[in-house]
């Protein structure tokens, strides 16, 4: 598979994503500068974490107006796989590819720590490698990860099984104590209607190698690669 990793001014997890795809999984990977106007030939596009445009105005807001985002939107509409991690998730909501918004963390602080996530939907193209209800250890690193959407949107996401991951205890209990940032219903990652766009605040690309303390992010990439469980 060929992965495109979009690079905005201020992206800083682009190299991590490139390393993940190219070196950990041995796939084709290419950086895609944000002024690019074609995504021809890519099977999956990753919007990496970082602080695009210094988080000015709102996180992800200015990046969502980059030329490449028109291409990302048509790529997604054609069924291409799009994954936004952290700042990438924020950009996808600003671009309208995913509903809701990532607000400032409830505690106002930047949080960089390992979190436990419960896999809520293991039927998607990004999570099929996990078992349903499995608890995985994937780190977060953000100041604006507090997922918010109006009650109707939340009900629709829940009803359609579009919540991919939820912050939980290591035992899989979804509670306020396990919620690092104030996200509604402990939501850590969501899918679009067609299931070909995933946005998540935790960083699966930082949980692929033993040296980094967890291998649990592998499931996301292995699911994309379509490996059988």
């Amino acid at each position, binding site marked *: 598979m060929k992965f495109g990793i979009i690079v905005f001014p201020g992206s800083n997890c682009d190299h991590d994503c490139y390393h993940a795809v190219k070196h950990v999984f041995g796939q084709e990977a290419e950086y895609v500068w944000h002024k690019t106007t074609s995504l021809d030939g890519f099977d999956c596009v990753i919007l990496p974490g970082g602080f695009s445009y210094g988080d000015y*105005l*709102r996180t992800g*807001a*200015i990046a969502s*107006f980059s030329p490449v985002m028109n291409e990302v939107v048509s790529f997604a509409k054609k069924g291409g796989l799009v994954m936004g991690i952290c700042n990438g998730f924020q950009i996808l*909501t*600003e671009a309208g590819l995913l*509903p*809701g*918004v990532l*607000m*400032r*963390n*409830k*505690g*106002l602080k930047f949080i960089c720590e390992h979190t436990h996530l419960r896999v809520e939907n293991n039927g998607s193209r990004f999570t099929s490698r996990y078992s349903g209800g499995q608890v995985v250890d994937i780190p977060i690193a953000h100041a604006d990860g507090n997922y*918010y*959407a*109006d009650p109707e949107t939340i009900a629709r996401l829940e009803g359609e099984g579009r919540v991919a991951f939820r912050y939980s205890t290591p035992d899989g209990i979804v509670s306020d104590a396990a919620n690092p940032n*104030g996200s509604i219903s402990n939501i850590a990652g969501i899918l679009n209607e067609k299931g070909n766009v995933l946005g998540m605040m935790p960083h699966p690309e930082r949980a692929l190698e033993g040296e980094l303390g967890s291998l649990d992010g592998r499931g996301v990439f292995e699911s994309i690669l379509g490996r059988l469980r």
Partner: protein
Amino acid sequence: MRAKVYVTLKKGVLDPQGKAVMGAGSIGFDEVKDVRVGKFMEVELTGLAGSRREEAPRDMREAPANTVIENYRIERGNLSLRKV
């Protein structure tokens, strides 16, 4: 022409920053009951000054606020164009 853009959080949306400002700002001021933090932008306009909002480029229409959580109001001169 100069436009003024006011962005405020919608009612009911939690504003942790406002809460923090209240915590710091209200020391010794019991009268402060709540603080909500918003944004104010000044935009210099050329050419578009006379056009209707619908004809403005997408960036101008959608950039100032995320309407999931924010309201915004634009003032041009003495004319208030939009109140959400």
